């Protein structure tokens, strides 16, 4: 790829999750040239790893399918995976962006036939299952992966598996000689849709995520519920594979906490309410979900869903920030705390604890351009020169619906920038 494909009329979207895809598609469908870069080997982001969306209980992959169809049909949109922005210089309407392209070791010839994966034996923790399962060193990220092309994990290079993979491919798709590349492109505007990451649960020490197998995060619970996930969609606890029928959901795990994330992550209340319904779906009346909360933030018409869940006899709500968790010999967990509504002390046993984990900006830890305005939690407000914008969870903790709303708005603002540039360029000659 060369710099010439992009011009000051091009919009760069950083991040290929729901926000980035939406921003890129909306801009491209307005007739703009768009480059969408994604750090990982596939588009889809975190939503592709969710089982269902609240409050409709519909499947994220359904929207992903539509978006991929939009994307495949749009010639103005160019996707680069395993690509990261390393620097942005210049000014609104005239940026120079340096991209680092990591090698996939698999080229366009790949037909996703899967022979390479069969041939290799080495495994890594599957990042698309949050490490709850293993995947081969040659793998297709997930069933909805785009591009639908295998990837070699870089640790395979120099091993016998690498040769095996190469030999297994009849189509010459495996290129072990691929190297990291750096390219520079010119763009008019940048949309940062770098999304979020789950807060490091091990840091919330009283909950023992790093000590107790059956304390997991809400994003991991999504994988358990998903039929494509590590348990084939069964709600089993990690320690012994037993059915988890009595589950505690701990709200504000990392959020609203000066020791961790100062902000409220917005989505977690609804996510837990949704997840109680996975439990119910799996076990009918023969299960128990307990939601430990400070405030249930089922905002606007999500309240309907909250009221519905409140009617569910398998779900109970405890107004309490759980103080600590201990583990008994059976691997079950004892939650200690006080229900502050009226003051009731409890030591409640549960099969599994799901931490409604907070959203941290994924951009925390990556170097953003100097011109960028960041808030105290690391969320991106935009660039001072008005040519770079944030969309979705990169801008503030948001659910999918609001992320797309935000991405659509960001797309418009980026279009305005390139329009202004075009006007100036025309005026100047």
């Amino acid at each position: 790829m060369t710099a010439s494909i992009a011009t000051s009329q091009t919009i760069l979207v950083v991040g290929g999750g729901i926000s980035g895809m939406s921003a890129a598609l909306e801009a491209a469908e307005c007739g703009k040239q768009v480059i969408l870069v994604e750090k990982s080997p596939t588009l889809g982001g975190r939503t592709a790893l969710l089982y269902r969306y609240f409050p409709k209980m519909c499947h994220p992959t359904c929207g992903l399918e539509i978006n991929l169809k939009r994307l495949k049909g749009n010639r103005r949109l160019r996707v680069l995976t395993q690509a990261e922005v390393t620097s942005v210089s210049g000014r609104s309407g005239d940026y120079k962006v340096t991209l680092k392209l990591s090698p996939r070791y698999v080229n366009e010839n790949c037909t996703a036939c899967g022979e390479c994966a069969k041939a290799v034996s080495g495994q890594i923790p599957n990042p698309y299952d949050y490490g709850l399962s293993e995947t081969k060193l040659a793998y297709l990220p997930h069933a909805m992966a785009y591009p639908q092309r295998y990837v070699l994990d870089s640790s395979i290079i120099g091993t016998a598996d690498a040769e095996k993979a190469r030999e297994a491919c009849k189509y010459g798709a495996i290129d072990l000689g691929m190297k990291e590349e750096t390219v520079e492109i010119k763009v008019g505007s940048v949309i940062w849709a770098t999304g979020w990451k789950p807060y490091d649960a091990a840091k919330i020490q009283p909950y023992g995520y790093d000590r107790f197998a059956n304390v997991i995060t809400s994003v991991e619970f999504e994988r358990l519920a998903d039929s494509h996930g590590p348990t084939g969609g069964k709600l089993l606890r990690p320690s012994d594979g037993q059915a988890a029928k009595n589950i505690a959901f701990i709200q504000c795990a990392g959020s609203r906490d000066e020791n961790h994330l100062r902000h409220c992550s917005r989505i977690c209340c609804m996510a837990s309410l949704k997840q109680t319904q996975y439990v119910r779906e799996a076990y009918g009346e023969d299960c128990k979900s307990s939601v430990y909360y400070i405030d249930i933030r089922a905002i606007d018409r999500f309240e309907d869903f909250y009221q519905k869940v409140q009617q569910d006899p398998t779900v109970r709500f405890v107004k309490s920030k759980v103080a600590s968790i201990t583990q008994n010999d059976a691997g079950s967990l004892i939650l200690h705390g006080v229900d502050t509504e009226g003051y009731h002390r409890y030591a409640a046993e549960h099969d599994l604890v799901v931490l409604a984990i907070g959203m941290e900006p994924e951009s925390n830890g990556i170097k953003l351009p100097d011109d960028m305005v960041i808030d105290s939690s690391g969320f991106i407000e935009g660039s001072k020169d008005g040519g770079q914008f944030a969309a979705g969870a990169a801008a503030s903790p948001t659910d999918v619906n609001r992320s797309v709303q935000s991405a659509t708005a960001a797309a418009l603002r980026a279009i305005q920038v390139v329009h202004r540039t075009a006007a100036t360029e025309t005026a100047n000659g």
Partner: protein
Amino acid sequence: MSDHNSQAVARYRNNFLKEVEERVEEGEWVKMCMQCGVCAGSCPFGAHWQHSPQKLFMMIRAGKREEVLTSDSMWMCTSCYNCVVRCPRQLPITHIMHGLASYAHRLGIAPKGQPTREFAKIFWDNLAKKGRVNELKLTLSLYFKDGLVSGIKTAMGMQSIGLGMVKAKRLNPMEIFGGHGLKDLKGFHAILAKAREIEDKRKGLT
């Protein structure tokens, strides 16, 4: 010293909250509590008291002055700091508990005969006297605080421990005649007196 004591406190008004902010150590944090209850669940002595910190904070905001200051609960604080490190609002709860207890004690409305209240006083008096704690005298004054008879009983009950400590050279019976003390005791007392004076003035506790 306490016109506050005679004032009727209106419910859910600022007055008691303000009083706490001005006069209680770290009292300005009380308003920041969001009632999550993590302190209540974290206290090792939680099961033993009536009002958890979070509840006391709500009571303060609700203007329940009498109930708060006469409560036994903050005297149960073991200074373990579990609540402090877990509080999502980073309230110095341990210190607020100490501050509330101290304030109630200063006002003279803390529960009479509350054992920790008495111990705390004895402890401070002990250290204030010589600048260092005299463990033997501290122990003895504790045993005899309820009078001679019960003191002898307690002391006899703990005799084996005491003897063990003496044998292990970890308790010195001779301390009764003096023990460790500061050289510049005068200066030490002057500091204490001055500090007390400044604080009382600042808090209007004269």
